């Protein structure tokens, strides 16, 4: 039996070895640990201010929630503020060192969302809070490590098929008997005993995104320019679509086997978004929509779970003491929260909602902080998506542009799917609200995700600076091609 602990490092080992021994490809004279960059870093100054602001908001919300639940100001406010500041400042210092010119709002937005989520978890599920804090600290550590190890995005481009293999292993791991675990009818987790559980699809979404970006960047022309002739009409040659189509179908199939509709939808959407951004061919979009509708119809007939979710989505009130209980009570809670919220720590009844601090955490925010709180979260995600797409616009290569686009699409659509599920714009799918919901795998993966965004952002910002000074890196497109 292969354990996940061996499986995961085994897949990453070649990558790690390559990255550690890539001396020949490095610029002449560049040390392994980069030097502290000199000069003014205006982006970082903005970031520092925003981070301190996010930390203060988090601690203030924490104090209010504690006063609400326990009726007294919690002891150790100082140390708690200290710990939060240490964590965000560690990430900030890493940015100053490893990505001095990168985007200034990505990290503060992530920290704010993480902080709001943490306060809700402390308030509704205090037993889980310590673990979530540990995951957040580990997430920031992984953020720093990612910035340190992936110093140039094109490094990732070079290990395209290795990454695909890694993604496949991650996706298949939950199906391996012995390490896969059923949680709420979906086979999403790997774990050894009850001590260590991991949801590999959270990491797989990033790895798959990088693979798709890499493949699309290389095959961009083949995929978009009609070269195949049929009669007197020209068509896009379908052959380059074949390998990636297989990879994509495989991913969808495996996630389908694992009964994880949320992630299947997410990977589907990210793939289609990348394909369209790469090629600009509306035919792909039409095909995708047709595929999606066909797939949804088939799935709702084949799988009782899908059918049930659709009926709960359309009318949770009909089954509000049964399968519709979660959503119906979510609405009662959010309605009770109203515009201003019931007040942090003052409502007692949202605790009846299953998975309140994971899948349904958006409801907890709506209950405690009302429309103001939920809107703040939606706006934070909008800003995060905006920052991500700006990063994509300024990226220096097609690959890094598509990577940033894909990663942003993942972050944005994941947030959209779960928020839309809670407010019943879409059928409810059990995926986590990035940075906010309880869950170690999700938090770690999303910190890696924004580290990669920051890496692309740093390169783009440097490109602008280098363009101004006339320096062009060999093998890279200095000027952004717009088409």
């Amino acid at each position, binding site marked *: 039996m292969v354990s996940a602990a061996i499986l995961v490092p085994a897949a990453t080992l070649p990558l790690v070895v390559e990255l550690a021994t890539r001396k020949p490809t490095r610029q002449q004279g560049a040390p392994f640990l980069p030097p502290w960059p000199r000069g003014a870093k205006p982006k970082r100054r903005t970031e520092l201010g925003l981070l301190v602001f996010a930390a203060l908001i988090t601690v203030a919300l924490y104090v209010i929630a504690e006063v609400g639940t326990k009726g007294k100001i919690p002891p150790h406010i100082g140390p708690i503020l200290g710990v939060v500041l240490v964590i965000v400042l560690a990430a900030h210092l890493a940015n100053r060192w490893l990505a001095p010119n990168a985007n200034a709002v990505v990290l503060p937005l992530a920290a704010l969302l993480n902080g709001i989520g943490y306060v809700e978890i402390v308030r509704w599920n205090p037993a889980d809070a310590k673990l979530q804090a540990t995951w957040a600290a580990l997430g920031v550590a992984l953020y720093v490590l990612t910035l340190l190890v992936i110093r140039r995005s094109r490094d990732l481009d070079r290990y395209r098929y290795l990454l695909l293999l890694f993604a496949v292993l991650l996706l298949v791991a939950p199906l391996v008997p012995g390490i896969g675990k059923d949680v709420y009818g979906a086979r999403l987790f790997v774990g050894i005993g009850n001590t260590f559980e991991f949801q590999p699809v959270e990491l797989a979404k990033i790895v798959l995104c990088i693979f798709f970006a890499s493949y699309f960047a290389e095959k961009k022309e083949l995929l978009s320019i009609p070269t195949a002739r049929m009669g007197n009409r020209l068509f896009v040659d379908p052959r380059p679509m074949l390998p990636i189509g297989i990879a994509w179908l495989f991913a969808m199939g495996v996630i389908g086997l694992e009964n994880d509709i949320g992630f299947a939808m997410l990977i589907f959407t990210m793939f289609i978004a990348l394909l369209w951004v790469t090629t600009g061919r509306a035919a792909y979009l039409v095909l995708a929509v047709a595929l999606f509708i066909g797939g949804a119809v088939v799935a709702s007939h084949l799988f009782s779970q899908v059918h049930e979710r659709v009926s709960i989505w359309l009318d949770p009130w009909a089954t509000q003491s049964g399968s519709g209980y979660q959503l119906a009570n979510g609405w009662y809670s959010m309605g*009770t929260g109203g515009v201003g919220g019931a007040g942090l720590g003052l409502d007692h009844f949202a605790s009846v909602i299953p998975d309140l601090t994971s899948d349904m955490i958006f409801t907890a925010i709506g209950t405690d902080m009302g429309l103001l709180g939920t809107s703040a979260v939606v706006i934070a995600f909008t800003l995060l998506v905006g920052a991500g*797409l700006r990063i994509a616009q300024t990226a220096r290569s097609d690959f890094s542009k598509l990577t940033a686009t894909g990663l942003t699409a993942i972050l944005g659509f994941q947030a959209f799917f779960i928020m839309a599920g809670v407010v019943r714009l879409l059928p409810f799918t059990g995926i986590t609200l990035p940075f906010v919901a309880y869950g170690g795998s999700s938090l770690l993966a999303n910190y890696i995700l924004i580290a990669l965004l920051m890496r692309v952002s740093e390169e783009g910002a440097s490109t602008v600076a280098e363009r101004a000074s006339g320096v062009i890196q060999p093998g890279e497109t200095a000027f952004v091609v717009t088409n």
Partner: protein
Amino acid sequence: MSRRIRWLGAVMLLCFALVLLQLANVQFRKAAALRNSPNNPRNFVKKFDNLRGDILAANGQVLAESVHAPKGSSYKYMRSYPAGPLFSQIVGINDPFYGAYTGIEQEYNSYLTAHSQSPKTLSQLLSPPPPTTDDVTLTLEPYLQQVAQQALAGISSANKDGAIVVLNPHTGAVLAMYSSPSYDPAPLANPDVAAEEKAGNAVFHSTDAEGFSGGLPMATYNRIFPGSTFKIVTTTAVYNLAPQLANFNYPVRPCTTPLPNSNKVICNDASSPQHAVACGGTIAQMLPPSCDPGYATLGMTIGPTDMVKQSELFGYNSVPPIDLPSAVSASYFPSVTQFQPQNLGLAGLAYSAFGQQNVQTTALQNALVAAAVANGGTIMTPHLMASIHDSNGPLVKSYQPTPWKQPMSAATAQTVNQLMQAVVTTPGATAYGVASNAGVSLASLHAAVKTGTAQTGLPTLYSIDDWMIGFAPANNPQVAVAVVVPYQPSNTYGATVAGPIMATMLQAALNPPPGQ
């Protein structure tokens, strides 16, 4: 590519805008409706979260009170039942899952919950007083209740199910009413709704091996064959409705002649003539030894019309108007048409006359039969509430005794009273020599009783329903009691199982401990 990234951004912006719109819909436009929906658990629970009045026993002992819920609970208050299983079947429960579900909690809910006070002074008329709760004091005597619980627990056979009802025959006040099995109300006062539902399923939707449920008190809910205790009704019918039969004289013999339209015979305390002891004579001679064939014949002589009339005068086929909201059953006596030849026939009436086969009664109804004789022929409405006080002290309401049924004249009651005394005092009578486990005899208590030993006909060892009903002291009755102990071994009698319990209950009721 940049242009399409902008388009992607526009699509995602639209997505988030839709979420915001829908949020405004849920949290602003529909917020009030959702907040006030009866299905919102906040509203569902609100009415059970208030301070409620206390429920007290006759001596002031607290049976139910509102206490502060533990910290971190969703509730401010929860219900506490310090008396536990001893009173749970009467007090009932009030909890977030079931609400004010059973017993006094439901019956007097409008008093127990906070309600507005009517103004009593001019200044109160101008500024209405704040809402108040009322405390309900019951007629139950905790020491009697406890004696009843211990008496049933002391039954010698393995099955200790049973019910005891002790009444004041002159007022209808229920002094004790205990049934085994009972249930512990503590898990049902749990503020955790899910735990409550689970505990409630165990109480209200499960039964013991004999089919009795703690959630449904046997004393008022379960109808059991009354056996020979029903002879009191038959005897009353003679003196009350058919006085020409007062000198009915049944030949001394072990069995009846074959019943009409049937080849069956009814034998005295046996299934066959060989084992039956011959009995007979006048009614006064037949009641003390409980002569089954004589009463069977007597019942057929009285006829269906008068038998049905007399049993319904005692309260059969109506629900006793006791102040309990649920789990009170009407006792059953067949209608006149059912004694027509195509149905049960007169043979059926023969069995009914001594309480077998088609007559079923609750312990409460049988206690009311005894009480009717004890109270000079009038059945007072049985009741549990003695008084209701405002939590601040003033009396809101006190119970005024009212008659329920008038099954016989005072003279008839006097005659039946004497016959019931004979059941204790006549050598060879069924209750002659019966004493409590502590050695107090029915005779020394001047009790008047009737035994009942009903064959359920079940092919099991535990096939006998043992009964005793009665009152004491016979010349000035203070208490009327019914004891039923169903599904006892086939070699037992009402006198051997229910008899000692009756003596124990009468002794306790007539000699209350000091201070009660």
